[in-house]
């Protein structure tokens, strides 16, 4: 009874080993072919070595299962008494050696190609933060944060999940097609790893060091990736979205982005003069809180005991206003509390601080105006 299902098991297993990968290779369950010369090279390397292994496996296991089936005691097989044959052993040592050398040659060529970062047209500084990415266009002086934009209720299964669940960000990294882009990857806190499968680029972001990578995208489109090194609580929630645009669209985008930056400066100055009422600030503050602060301090303001402090009834949120502003602007070094001075506009900062001082029945009644924030920023 056992011998029969062993052979069946073997053929089922070989079918599984052979058929499923072929089926999955065409489906979505295989390494993406990608849109760069490097990703094509890596994909073909992956498939060749995979097929070499499958071929060896079929031969080796074939011999093994045939001999198991054929030499069973119940079929009267008598055990032969040979137990050494050095010639055979040398052969089955040299054959794998030859196969390995055959694999090493294309692998070396691909690796050398991956390491050539000379003469790039665009330089992007990528910085990993605890649980979001920061992109800085070194030549064009544009920089922004790129945070997960999947709403929290989708993650908590209170709303249906859209197609790009957990792979969508508020501001994607925009790159030109056909241009060589050089990435300078570093980190603000712990080790992250910037990975976009379609570009076959994966480089660890290490605090204190700059790692280099490059890519030259062949087709425009949107390419999604994720952080590939455990970096703490929300390691699975800091995706990467690269939007490759044609050269004209890219330069238009850069120009528009720089114009936007100027407009934002004026708007900040202008909104500082606008009279904000308490309720307007509370409404705006709640939106900013949900988008940024709730990740750690939780929507309820209770935080996570001994990991992220609670704001409800906290001495900071109900104590001295200047101290509260100082912490939100400059963060607290050595902890996950970041400096939001550069990340939010003065209006958003004023609104979120007002919200934190009055929500969850902290209700200190304080109204922090954008002018107060601007005053602190100017004094610096």
């Amino acid at each position: 009874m056992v011998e029969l299902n062993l052979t069946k098991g073997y053929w089922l297993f070989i079918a599984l080993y052979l058929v499923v990968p072929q089926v999955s290779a065409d489906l979505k369950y295989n390494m993406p072919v990608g849109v760069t010369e490097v990703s094509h090279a890596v994909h073909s390397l992956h498939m060749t070595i995979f097929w070499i292994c499958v071929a060896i496996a079929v031969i080796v296991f074939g011999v093994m299962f045939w001999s198991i089936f054929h030499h069973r005691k119940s079929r009267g097989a008598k055990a032969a008494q040979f137990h050494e044959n050095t010639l055979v052993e040398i052969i089955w040592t040299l054959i794998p050696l030859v196969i390995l050398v055959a694999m090493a040659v294309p692998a070396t060529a691909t690796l050398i190609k991956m390491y050539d970062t000379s003469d790039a047209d665009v330089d992007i500084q990528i910085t990993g933060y605890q649980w979001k990415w920061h992109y800085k266009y070194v030549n064009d002086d544009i920089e922004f944060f790129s945070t997960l934009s999947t709403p929290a209720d989708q993650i908590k299964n209170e709303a249906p999940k859209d197609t790009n669940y957990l792979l969508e960000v508020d501001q994607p990294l925009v790159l030109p097609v056909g241009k060589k882009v050089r990435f300078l990857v570093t980190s603000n806190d712990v080790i992250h790893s910037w990975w976009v499968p379609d570009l076959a680029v994966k480089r660890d972001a290490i605090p204190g060091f700059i790692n280099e990578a490059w890519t030259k995208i062949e087709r425009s489109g949107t390419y999604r990736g994720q952080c590939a090194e455990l970096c703490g609580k929300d390691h699975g929630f800091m995706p990467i979205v690269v939007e490759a645009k044609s050269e004209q669209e890219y330069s238009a985008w850069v120009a528009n982005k720089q114009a936007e930056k100027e407009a934002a400066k004026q708007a900040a100055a202008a909104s500082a003069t606008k009279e904000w009422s308490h309720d307007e600030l509370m409404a705006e503050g709640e939106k900013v809180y949900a988008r940024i602060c709730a990740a750690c301090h939780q929507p309820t303001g209770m935080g996570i005991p001994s990991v992220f402090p609670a704001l409800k009834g906290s001495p900071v949120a109900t104590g001295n206003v200047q101290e509260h502003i100082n912490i939100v602007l400059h963060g607290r070094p050595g902890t996950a509390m970041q400096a939001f001075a550069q990340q939010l506009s003065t209006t958003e900062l004023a609104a979120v601080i007002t919200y934190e001082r009055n929500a969850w029945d902290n209700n200190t009644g304080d109204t922090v105006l954008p002018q107060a924030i601007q005053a602190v920023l100017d004094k610096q």
Partner: protein
Amino acid sequence: MKQMLLDWWRIVRSVLSAFLGVQNEHSRQRDFASDSPWPFIIAGVVLALILVIALVLIVHVVLASG
């Protein structure tokens, strides 16, 4: 002197076959009949270092050839 050279060559050969992982019964018995294991250990460590250096050289040759 000649005998000593012969011994060392036999030890090196058996350590090299150890690296490959293949050895026949006869030379294995002769190897293990010798009194102390120390020459084998020293030869092993030296040859391991030579292997590392050989690999580094291969890498340089590969990189030089571009």
